[in-house]
């Protein structure tokens, strides 16, 4: 006696759910990185952390990816122009205490 196909339907549903979540998470990651592969193993010098700009817990905010964001407007954006856009000289954020603002 063979197993009726209805027996396998729940397994199909489960596999379909796994496939859906994998595709959704991967697509989201792809969107967040501007269609490029995500960076991994990035150190404190390289990384961009949005909370580093507002949090006191991160002592060394990322420099390199923050600079990319200032140059291109997007954390994963890249540009090979020899000269920075106007206003780049002065838009470097300083982390200060609230009472000095």
């Amino acid at each position, binding site marked *: 006696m063979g197993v009726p196909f209805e027996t396998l339907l729940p397994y199909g549903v489960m596999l379909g759910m796994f496939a859906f979540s994998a595709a959704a998470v991967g697509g989201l990651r792809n969107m967040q990185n501007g269609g*490029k592969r995500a960076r991994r193993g990035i150190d404190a010098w390289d990384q961009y952390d949005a909370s580093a700009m507002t949090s006191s817990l991160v002592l060394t905010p990322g420099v390199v990816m923050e600079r990319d964001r200032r140059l291109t407007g997007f954390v994963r954006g890249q540009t090979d122009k020899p000269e920075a856009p106007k206003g780049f000289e002065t838009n470097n954020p300083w982390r200060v205490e609230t009472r000095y603002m």
Partner: protein
Amino acid sequence: MASRQPRFTQQVLIDTTPLPDDIPKVKELGASSAPLLSASFFIGARCKAYNDDYMMCKTEANGRGEFECMKEGRKVTRCAASVIKDINETCLAEFRTHWQCLENHNQQLWNCRSEERKLNKCVFNKLKLEKTIPGTPEGEQQIHTRVKNTFATH
């Protein structure tokens, strides 16, 4: 600034006041991280003297280097920008292929050696800038000239 280190740095301040006019203007370098990494050894090849000069100035300035070495710093910026500009004018296709590969491979040079070889060849032929890794032991083959890459994913 106060002599005390800031502690509760919850806020950022973006001060848009430009530099005073008595400081000569220099355009900041506009290349972002992947193009800079791709061009780094060529920048080193052309600008070694300026970079060493700046670092020596900062070492000898006893912590006031940001102010006292601005002249040397402008030379460093201008030299790096000139290298990027020259590469853009002569080897743009190879340059873009290489830095886009770097950007897609976690900015790891070892994963983009085939693109790098084409870029190195073009830059050496047209700009006479050769990539040499400082500190390689005498007589050992430079890592970027190896044709076989065991761990590269493509």
